[in-house]
């Protein structure tokens, strides 16, 4: 092709052919274009990764909001509210624990336990709610060194109090004070709900009139029943599907919604990827003699064809939630539902029925994680338009659902 065929440098036949074919073009049929693009791998990973990223971000955001609310006010059984105010100080400042009364009345101070935080100082103000109306509020503070120094003028003889307290034997002092075992403030960052080990308590069941929410991720393996409908131009027996490489498919479903009246109402995004490879034979046959009076007849084939189809659906679903009452099955639930989705990549809709069984993992209230098998079956066909084929998909996957209780009525 580099024009190096100078052996017959004067080749009028070649020049004439070159000139004749120089502008020779043909327009392929639109179906050829469809087949070419159907066989190309689509960049679907980006979309799936984005969707997964959004889901994770949403889960984290929900948990952060929840955790920050819990951090604002921690109730104690004595009816006190510990107000926590974080004071950020430079790392080199070590918090100094001092107790001082802010009130002129000399009532017994109440102690608050302060978590060890090497690089943060925390001021804890314990306020006795029951004595709000009373004139003498007790105010115990643990302040950073600098803050404490700046406030020392307004405080009444903290050193004297400190000395008097240190004079009392520790056992006597502790016994005389209504110390409540507070949950230590380990960190200001929220932590993932702890899975309760060895819990015999039944998993919480959402009341019918209460509203809950849920988020699900369902990776799945897809299968399909393929229908090749014959027509006078098609010779079906010439089609040979590649063995292991045919029908490769996978999918993922992301669903979110709410639960009420015993039903789950959801919006879902579904990605189904299908890869099907096959050969189509042509009319030529090859006869090879393999022995005396023995022949092997082999049909020629055109080439390996591959249909690659990524289907993206957005749909709405409803499912009935069943919570078992039998004690042995109380930690399990089942759901059966119907979903209707529309394809984003082609003008097709698909109705599917789904069934799932979940094991409810006990986690910190109000969350619940359910894990279990999930089966979904299409109840009508999808089309591969470029080939005129129909198929009915069905998926088997693993459902992982995070749910939580919402507003009760």
């Amino acid at each position, binding site marked *: *092709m*580099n*024009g*190096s*065929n*100078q*052996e017959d440098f*004067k*080749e*009028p*036949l*070649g*020049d*004439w*052919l*070159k*000139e*004749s*074919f120089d502008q*020779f*073009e*043909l*327009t*392929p*049929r639109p179906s*050829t*274009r469809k*087949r*070419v*693009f159907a*066989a*190309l*791998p*689509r*960049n679907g990973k980006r979309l799936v990764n984005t969707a997964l990223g959004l889901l994770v971000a949403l889960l984290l955001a929900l948990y952060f909001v929840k955790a920050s609310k819990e951090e604002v006010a921690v109730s104690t059984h004595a009816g006190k509210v510990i107000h926590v105010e974080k004071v950020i100080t430079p790392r080199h400042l070590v918090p100094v624990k001092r107790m001082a009364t802010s009130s002129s009345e000399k009532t017994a101070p109440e102690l608050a336990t302060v978590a060890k935080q090497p690089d943060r100082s925390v001021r804890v103000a314990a306020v006795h709610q029951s004595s709000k109306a009373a004139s003498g509020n007790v105010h115990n503070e643990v302040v950073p060194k600098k803050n404490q120094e700046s406030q020392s003028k307004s405080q009444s003889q903290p050193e004297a109090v400190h000395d008097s307290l240190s004079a009392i034997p520790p056992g006597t002092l502790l016994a005389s004070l209504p110390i409540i075992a507070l949950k230590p403030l380990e960190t200001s960052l929220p932590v993932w709900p702890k899975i309760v080990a060895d819990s015999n308590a039944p998993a919480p069941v959402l009341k019918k009139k209460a509203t809950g929410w849920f988020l699900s991720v369902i990776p799945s393996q897809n299968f399909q029943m393929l229908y090749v409908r014959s027509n006078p131009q098609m010779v079906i027996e010439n089609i040979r599907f590649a063995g292991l490489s045919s029908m490769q498919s996978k999918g993922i479903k992301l669903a979110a919604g709410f639960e009420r009246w015993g039903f789950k109402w959801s919006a879902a995004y579904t990605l189904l990827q299908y890869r099907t490879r096959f050969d189509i034979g042509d009319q*030529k046959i090859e006869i090879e003699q393999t022995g005396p009076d023995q022949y092997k007849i082999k049909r*020629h*084939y*055109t*080439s390996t064809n*591959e249909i690659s189809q990524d289907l993206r659906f957005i749909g709405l679903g409803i499912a009935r939630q069943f919570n078992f009452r039998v004690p042995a099955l109380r930690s399990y639930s089942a759901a059966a539902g119907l979903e209707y989705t529309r394809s984003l990549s082609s003008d097709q809709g698909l109705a599917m029925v789904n069934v799932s069984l979940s094991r409810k993992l006990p986690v910190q209230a109000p969350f619940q994680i359910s894990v279990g098998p999930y089966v979904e079956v299409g109840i009508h066909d999808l089309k591969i338009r470029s080939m005129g084929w129909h198929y009915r998909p069905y998926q088997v996957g693993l459902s992982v659902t995070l749910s939580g209780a919402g507003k009760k009525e």
Partner: protein
Amino acid sequence: MLFSKRRYNSLTELVEGCQRRERKAQNAFYERYQGKMLGICRRYARTLSEAEDIFQEAFIKVFKKIDDLHTPESADSWVKSVIIRTALSYYERTTKKELLSAQIDLNVQDWDSSEFTSWGHVDIELVVKVLSDLPGGYRTIINLYLIDGYNHTEIAEMLGIEPSTSKSQLMRGKKLLIKKLQEIGIIEDERIQPGRL
């Protein structure tokens, strides 16, 4: 950027878009090459249907292997090369034996094509039909040597034959081609009809 129409102002941008698997770039790339490349496939194929099969297979290869194209400016020749090699691969499965063993009584007088200097323009469909009717081996070598400009060494390497075989096949192919051109009246009395060429 999300909803704006992406434009590719140069072949380099277009190729780079295809390498990023951008569907718009692939569409534009397909638009650019579809006509010319199907024309090449048609020359190597017996029928239009076969040409479309080769074209489809070749274009899928082009998009899948476009990462191998390191100099986007040479995309034209690279795409053509992929198309031709796909056509050869396609026919390797069906016509290689024919190429090596075809014995056709050409019964054509020795004909020195260099005598003819005035080859005019003909109905290209007729020429395509003549090419299509040639045995696969002759058609392949005529395409490779006379039209696409490969030399016998390159052809021998591509087809897995000896250069001498390529030369002899070319001679036979040329004779058969001329005979067929004569039969349909493009060449008359060993000369080309002035009015049709």
